[in-house]
């Protein structure tokens, strides 16, 4: 997608100083603006009110918009999603939060059988403008179920759109964009990146097209690393390291996990001819499998090595102490890069 490259460039060439925001602040700011401009928008979930959410992402919003617009619910995720669906049927724009990814499972029935199908079932008469925020992925040494990767589950479900920002700039704009869409969007926030500050250009959202598809986070020519969420910055680190050895890795930030930017993937990999997809979730039938299958098909003639997948293992997400063994670390990604670079047809 050519826009992708454009928006990446944008960050480099602009001159006015950027606001330094953490992703948590950027999302908080976007939510405030959404509530401000769309009075059908409602935020609710567990502890999103007075507490401002366990990650403080909704900090100050109840104080600012009142307890009708921003409210705490009882502790029941299916209830939260089911209520959101009913509110959307009544013409509201719910922006529910599930407190941690691992607690989206109790809501899966409502998400799959109801949220994702209501537009279809009603033949388009009951659109589901529901923006579901899910603090996602691991890396914060949290208790069990507090760091999971549900993108494969969500993105497999027809009727859902899924997006994950990699940095504060994206988080701000992608959330506003997602919230403007008349379809259910699952917004997966990489919680390991909540506190990292980076420049945000609040005015850069004029061009909707630049918010669709993937972006090239770093251009390169020897192989493409494909990642999303917190793995994007890790891949950028890997690219930095590899550059010291003269290896130029392109980093493609997928951003939209559904729909997947097939054209963007094909464009990058037909140039670099080698691909490594990196994700935190389990390997088997992870989103990496889809990416590998797509690329293996679209770049069949140009690929010089099998697509490598560096992913979480097919094991339950381990406790904090072992999390660095589980989440793709720099070493494992480098091994993957090495495999695609050294591959020779047998």
């Amino acid at each position, binding site marked *: 997608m050519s826009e992708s490259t454009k928006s990446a460039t944008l960050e480099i060439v602009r001159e006015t100083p950027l606001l330094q925001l953490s992703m948590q602040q950027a999302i908080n700011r976007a939510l405030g603006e959404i509530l401000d401009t769309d009075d059908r928008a*409602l935020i609710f979930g567990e502890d999103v009110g007075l507490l401002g959410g366990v990650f403080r992402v909704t900090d100050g919003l109840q104080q600012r918009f009142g307890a009708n617009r921003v409210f705490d619910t*009882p502790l029941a995720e299916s209830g939260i999603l*089911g209520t959101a669906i009913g*509110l959307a049927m009544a013409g509201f724009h719910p922006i529910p939060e599930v407190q941690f990814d691992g607690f989206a499972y109790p809501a899966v029935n409502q998400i799959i059988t109801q949220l994702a199908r209501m*537009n*279809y079932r009603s033949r388009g008469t009951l*659109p589901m403008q529901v923006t579901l925020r899910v603090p996602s992925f691991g890396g914060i040494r949290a208790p069990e179920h507090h760091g999971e990767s549900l993108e494969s589950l969500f993105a497999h479900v027809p009727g859902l759109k899924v997006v994950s920002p990699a940095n504060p700039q994206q988080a701000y704009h992608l959330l506003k964009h997602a919230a403007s869409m008349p379809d259910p969007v699952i917004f997966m926030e990489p919680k390991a990146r909540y506190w990292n500050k980076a420049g945000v250009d609040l005015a850069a959202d004029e061009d909707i097209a630049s918010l669709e598809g993937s972006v090239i986070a770093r251009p390169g020519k020897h192989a493409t690393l494909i990642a999303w969420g917190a793995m994007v910055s890790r891949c950028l680190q890997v690219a930095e390291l590899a550059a010291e050895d003269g290896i130029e890795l392109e980093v493609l930030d997928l951003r939209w996990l*559904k729909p997947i930017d097939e054209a963007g993937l094909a464009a990058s990999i037909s140039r670099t001819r080698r691909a490594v997809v990196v994700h935190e979730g389990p390997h088997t039938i992870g989103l990496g499998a889809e990416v590998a299958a797509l690329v293996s098909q679209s770049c069949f003639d140009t690929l010089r090595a099998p697509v490598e997948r560096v992913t979480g293992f097919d094991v339950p997400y381990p406790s904090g102490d072992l999390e660095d063994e589980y989440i793709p670390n720099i070493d494992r990604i480098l091994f993957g890069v090495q495999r695609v670079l050294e591959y020779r047809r047998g």
Partner: protein
Amino acid sequence: MAPRALAATLDTLSTSPADDAARGPARLLDVYRMLANVRQLDTSAVAWQRQGLIPGYAPMLGQEAAQVGAGFAVDKTRDFVFPSYREMGVAYTLGVNMVDYMSTHKAIWHGGLYDPVASHFAPFQAVVGGSVLHAVGWAHGQTLNGASLGGLGVGLAFLGDGASSQGDVHEAMNFAAILKAPVVFFVQNNGWAISVPTEQQVAGGSVAARAAGYGMPALRIDGNDVLAVLEATQRAVAHARAGLGPVVVEAMTYRRGPHSTSDDPGRYRTLDDEKIDGGEDPLRRFRSVLVEQGVADASFFDKSDADAQTRADEIRDGVVALESRPGSEMFDFVFQESTPTLGAQARQWREESEHV
């Protein structure tokens, strides 16, 4: 199984001003006509299935009083009904286009072809307990919108005794009571969830009895007495409409037919059980009332039944005429805004299946 009237906290429920009108003779005749329509369409639909016109159907034989009574209590300019899969009688009473409603049983479109927004009747839905929370969310939306003249719009969730076992129903009741949402949980306790009798399903024996645990009023009523249902539902709706919060209505009725046209009740209950537990036919009961009150006579019933037959035949013609929806609609209705992937799949489908 004999349904007994049990008014858990009846006193807290104000009597709606509509009650008297509900008992006026013209209204009573309307109610009977609708009962006759529903009974006829239900019986016809079973026949259509036997004739191969539709692949399956879930009869509501015996539940006409519960459904028509409840339907008459709905204000379809501002209330909204959240049905499950057996609420044909509610749909009919609400004025849903019945050909479009029946389309789901013809396997044309899962949610039915009717317009849920215009009908104030949510799409046909097969996940047991799945739509109960939607009623709560929708109702809370009415609270947020604020009451207009005459009070809040009320969400009516229809669920069965079986559905009451689902976790979602508990979450819905708790959310509704916490939010003070204007919802009526209308439980048709028809004695069975497929082959499982209420005793093995509903611990404690009554869904209405659970309401107290949420601080919610409940009415447990004879669901085969159409006027009792109408009155109870009106009172429940009035309570919710006034902003006083949710109410449970448990209509004790009986599923006189099979669970669906592919069910074989002989495996789990005898014909004798059915006769004893089913009690008197709700239509016959209402007919006696009308005759006793001198409101109607045999010619009225004959005429109503004949009209019902005519309407059922018209609906049949409509259902016969219904054609499959074009396959492209599979792709069209997934999203409001489609995606490139879906567009590509639709194109490939057209090439390979429609050869265009």
